[in-house]
């Protein structure tokens, strides 16, 4: 065979076009599009936008229209919050936004969960790319699209969006969307965030963006299918209507602007708002010192088992570029749900800036647009299509904290600040997810609002506030538990009581979290689950010498009916986890502690499940804490006198709490000298401390030290290259336990003659 006959013929341009058309026409599955999903920057300015800006760019006109659109978004937000059926809707786990014709989020409502809105540009861009010119779908006036699969955008598939296009005289001018944390989605566990999911197929409804509304009417056949796929069919219907009508209200406000100022003014406003914010962000970054800051945050579980999962963050600022480098973070778990798609991580990092660093900027996609993010492929912060991600909050929240911790170290020296330098806020959703059949015979699955009560980190000038707000929505609410109790068959017997000694000490201490005790009543088919990190390792770092929070377990009391106790012997009841677990006041009850990844568990009437929200991190050397503030903490039940005296070296009268300032100063001076005495020089310390690999007694996932290219996968001798994905399976925790017990039986010669 000669050379000519073996060489492939180079296709002509015409043939290439034919091949492309063939491939386009025969696409078997329109999965998540990496071109859309990996990009968080703004779309290029279009010719239409350019023309519009040429006609309208007056700053006053733009500001006026932006404020009108902002008001419209806020109005839509209020509608969803007031009318939404999902518990999340009632406390602000909601947002509305207006997107450019190309799909970029230009303006979001002032309240609510910004991350939802900041990530809905992905499904809109999917619709634009795939459905706009698709003859079987199309995009017309009166259409509405639904979406919840985070692989096509957004955080996790418990959040559902309604997306509508806005036309003016037949031309698309923008999009409007409304998103709610709906909760129930038909997953393997009730409530929408299954920890037990071992593949995306366990995670319930996975809606790629599709049309569910035509002529402003919800299509009943599709609605019925969706209702039939979840545990709360009425909620599914009601909230689809609520989101649609909120979108229509915003549409009405946009049309008023279109009629008064014209489409060019609207489109110019949306585009200039984004471009101006993007430019301002680059200017602000350029004011930071050129530096690399490193941090890491540990997840101490997959929610199924305890292990050490590293979120590694290197943040580098050079000129006006800011790069988050998360390489070295844990590999993705093939059969655990704590992975996130990278867009989710970016959405949470956007929260660092819009909620905590530059809250003055208009809320939209542009504030994070120029910031770069690097990750390893198939890592826990950039997982593959096949990995479950229903518990992505675990990774996006720890990623958020790594970012928040790193950013604070850039800000201190900046002359221009927009907020105080801030230690990390608590980052876990320490709350109860619940489900089953209610006292009214309704099948339900959702969660308590307490996840919104995260303790705030301390700042450079004051203590963190208690149970303030979730890191994903600084303008959300904790909601009224009493209202929720009218619909669910359990009571929070203790709620909103600060957990004493669960502290994050510092010159300024972190804001603390509160205790929650729940017990089922009036249903034999009801249960709870919890989904949080931090029962063995704190999920935070302290700032500038301050400490992180402690750890927060789940405590249970079984074989008791506390309602009987309250009825017959109320004096036996105690109002703190500390007292109930230490005093064990209920005879013959079973008292136990667990990590915070409790899979859905059916509860019997009167059994106690007890947890605590967490504290934000502390700031500065605790020996500099004002003694008077320490006594105030004691008086408020935040810290016990013994712990306060031991940690803060404050000297006071045990009976009157009167401070002896001179003795305190002397005790603190002595402690500073004691520190110097017990500490060793760095070079000497690392000789004894540093090890070349992770410890063998821990299942460790992620890089070790500076070698970010090698990712450990549960043992010191199992690794992968950061850029070379490998499957990372975990055994079922019950199989692990069975193997342990069988090994003990075998060692004791008690396995009998069982054949293998």
């Amino acid at each position, binding site marked *: 065979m000669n050379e000519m006959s073996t060489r492939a013929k180079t296709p002509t341009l015409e043939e290439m076009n034919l091949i492309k058309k063939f491939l386009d026409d025969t696409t078997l599955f329109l999965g998540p599009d990496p071109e859309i999903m990996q990009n968080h920057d703004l779309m290029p300015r279009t010719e239409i936008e350019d023309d519009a800006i040429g006609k309208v760019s007056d700053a006053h006109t733009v500001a006026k229209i932006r404020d009108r659109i902002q008001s419209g978004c806020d109005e839509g937000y209020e509608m969803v919050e007031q009318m939404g059926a999902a518990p999340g809707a009632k406390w602000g786990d909601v947002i509305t936004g207006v997107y450019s014709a190309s799909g970029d989020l230009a303006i979001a409502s002032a309240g609510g969960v910004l991350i939802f809105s900041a990530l809905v540009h992905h499904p809109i861009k999917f619709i634009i790319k795939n459905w706009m010119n698709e003859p079987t779908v199309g995009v017309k006036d009166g259409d509405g699209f639904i979406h919840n699969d985070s692989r096509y955008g957004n955080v996790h598939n418990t959040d559902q969006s309604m997306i509508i296009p806005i036309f003016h005289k037949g031309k698309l001018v923008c999009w409007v969307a409304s998103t709610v944390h709906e909760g129930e989605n038909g997953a393997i566990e009730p409530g929408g965030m299954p920890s037990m999911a071992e593949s995306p197929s366990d995670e319930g409804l996975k809606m790629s963006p599709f049309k569910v509304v035509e002529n402003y009417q919800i299509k009943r056949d599709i609605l019925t299918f969706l209702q039939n796929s979840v545990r709360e069919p009425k909620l599914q219907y009601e909230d689809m209507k609520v989101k649609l009508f909120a979108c229509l209200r915003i549409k009405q406000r946009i049309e008023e602007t279109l009629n008064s100022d014209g489409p060019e003014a609207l489109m110019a406003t949306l585009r200039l708002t984004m471009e101006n914010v993007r430019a301002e962000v680059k200017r602000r970054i350029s004011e930071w010192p050129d530096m690399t800051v490193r941090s890491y945050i540990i997840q101490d579980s997959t929610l199924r088992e305890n292990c050490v999962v590293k979120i590694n963050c290197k943040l580098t600022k050079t000129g006006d570029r800011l790069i988050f480098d998360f390489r070295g973070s844990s590999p993705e778990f093939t059969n655990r749900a704590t992975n996130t798609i990278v867009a989710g991580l970016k959405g949470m990092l956007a929260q660092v800036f819009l909620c905590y660093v530059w809250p003055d900027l208009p809320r939209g996609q542009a504030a994070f647009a120029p910031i770069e993010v690097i990750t390893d492929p198939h890592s826990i912060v950039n997982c593959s299509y096949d990995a479950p991600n229903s518990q992505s909050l675990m990774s996006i929240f720890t990623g958020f904290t790594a970012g928040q911790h790193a950013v604070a170290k850039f800000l201190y020296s900046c002359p221009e600040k927009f907020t105080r330098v801030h230690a990390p806020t608590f980052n876990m959703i320490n709350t109860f997810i619940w489900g089953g059949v209610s006292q009214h015979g309704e099948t339900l699955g959702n969660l308590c609002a307490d996840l919104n009560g995260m303790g705030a980190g301390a700042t450079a000038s004051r203590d963190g506030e208690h149970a303030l707000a979730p890191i994903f929505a600084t303008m959300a609410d904790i909601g009224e538990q009493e209202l929720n109790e009218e619909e669910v068959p359990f009571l929070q017997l203790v709620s909103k009581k600060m957990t004493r000694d669960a502290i994050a*000490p510092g010159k300024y201490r972190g804001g603390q979290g509160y205790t929650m005790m729940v017990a089922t009543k009036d249903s034999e088919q009801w249960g709870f689950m919890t989904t949080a990190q931090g029962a063995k390792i704190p999920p935070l770092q302290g700032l500038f010498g301050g400490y992180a929070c402690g750890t927060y377990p789940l405590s249970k009391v079984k074989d008791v009916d506390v309602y009987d106790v309250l009825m017959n012997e109320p004096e036996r009841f105690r109002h703190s986890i500390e007292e109930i677990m230490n005093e064990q006041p209920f005879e013959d009850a079973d008292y136990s502690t667990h990590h915070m990844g409790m899979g859905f568990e059916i509860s019997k009437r009167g059994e106690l499940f007890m947890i605590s929200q967490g504290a934000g991190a502390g700031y500065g050397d605790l020996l500099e804490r004002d003694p008077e503030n320490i006594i105030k903490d004691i008086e408020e039940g935040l810290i016990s006198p013994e712990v306060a005296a031991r940690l803060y070296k404050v000297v006071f009268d045990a009976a009157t709490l009167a401070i002896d300032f001179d003795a305190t100063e002397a005790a603190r001076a002595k402690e500073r000298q004691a520190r110097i005495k017990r500490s060793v020089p760095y070079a000497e310390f690392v000789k004894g401390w540093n*090890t070349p690999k992770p410890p063998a007694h821990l299942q460790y996932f992620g890089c070790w030290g500076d070698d970010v290219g090698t990712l450990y996968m549960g043992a010191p001798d199992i690794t992968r290259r950061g850029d070379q994905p490998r499957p990372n399976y975990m055994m079922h925790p019950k199989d692990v336990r069975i193997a342990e017990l069988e090994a003990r039986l075998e060692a004791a010669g008690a396995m009998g003659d069982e054949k293998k």
Partner: protein
Amino acid sequence: MKIPMTEYLRIDLETEKWECRVCDHVIAPADGNYKEGLLVHNRDPREIHPPIIDPDKYRFTFSPDPEWVRILEFCCPGCGTQVETEYAIPGHPPLWDMQVDVAALKAQWAARGPAALPDAGPVVMPERGHSH
């Protein structure tokens, strides 16, 4: 010019050194890891985050597990001020957390001038803590 970089650390742009803002101790070269000039203590996390429920009865107590995590406490050898903490997996090398481009810092502040120095820093007194 001396630039306050953290609550307790500054960089002297002339000498290019990290310094303690409380006692003026010269800690380390500014282009290196300031932690190399500090003292370190490996703290059992249970001492800072005390068990709230009885560790003799329960596996999880509100205290971090000392086999899983330690607190590295970094203090100034001159005054004993706790400059930084690091919650670390046992054996994990401490982080070089602030790697400064000193030349860029000098250029940035040469353009700004001392009038722009941030006001967030503390008033420092060696013996008595400090406040804003």
